């Protein structure tokens, strides 16, 4: 059982890394790219004995307490078997 956690900057927070990447992508000749923002992706391998609810709650707490800074970041958790 695996938890996939996506951590992204809140929409109002400046993302200079995303802007730099966007600029490079434009230099490569891609057009019509409105914006690029960079986030983080984590995989947490969970014990198979956990129920789906326990797995989701555990992963959400890890995301909230460690992986994301709730002042500037949002997070989303997916559980996969």
């Amino acid at each position: 059982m695996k938890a996939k956690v996506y951590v992204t900057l809140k929409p109002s927070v400046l993302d200079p890394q995303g802007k730099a990447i966007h600029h490079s992508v434009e230099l490569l000749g891609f057009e019509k790219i409105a914006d690029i923002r960079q986030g983080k992706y984590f995989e947490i391998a969970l014990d198979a004995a956990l129920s789906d609810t326990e797995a989701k709650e555990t992963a959400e707490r890890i995301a909230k307490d460690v992986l994301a800074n709730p002042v500037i970041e949002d997070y989303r958790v997916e559980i996969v078997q």
Partner: protein
Amino acid sequence: MKFGVIVFPGSNCDHDAYHVISKHVGQPVEFVWHKETDLSSYDAVIVPGGFSYGDYLRCGALAKFSPVMAAVKDFAAQGKFVFGICNGFQILCEAGLLPGALIRNANLHFICKHVNLKVENNHTPYTSEISARITNEVAMPHGCALPP
């Protein structure tokens, strides 16, 4: 007044802080390893600069889980002095002892240059003997700052 300088894996300005307190401020000072949980013998604690935990995840994000930080929070709650410098300041923000969060510098550069400082507030224990008009030139290296 007895000072403790916290040392995390990756802290590198702990020696600067120790030197300044010992040789220039002239007060007793000790290094405190991040696994310590007892700060009762200190009057003031310094969280020094550097790259604690390699700046992994976010600057200061992992240091806040070190055993010593629960003691630092209690220490602050007791009204004792906690002073964070550079990465130390980032750690205090991540630990919730200071408000706000840090994001990448807008130009993505790690900035290391001499800057002039102005004392904005000399009604704190750390600045009460500095005239508000004096500026000091200091070297200030950093990769993340508080957004405007």
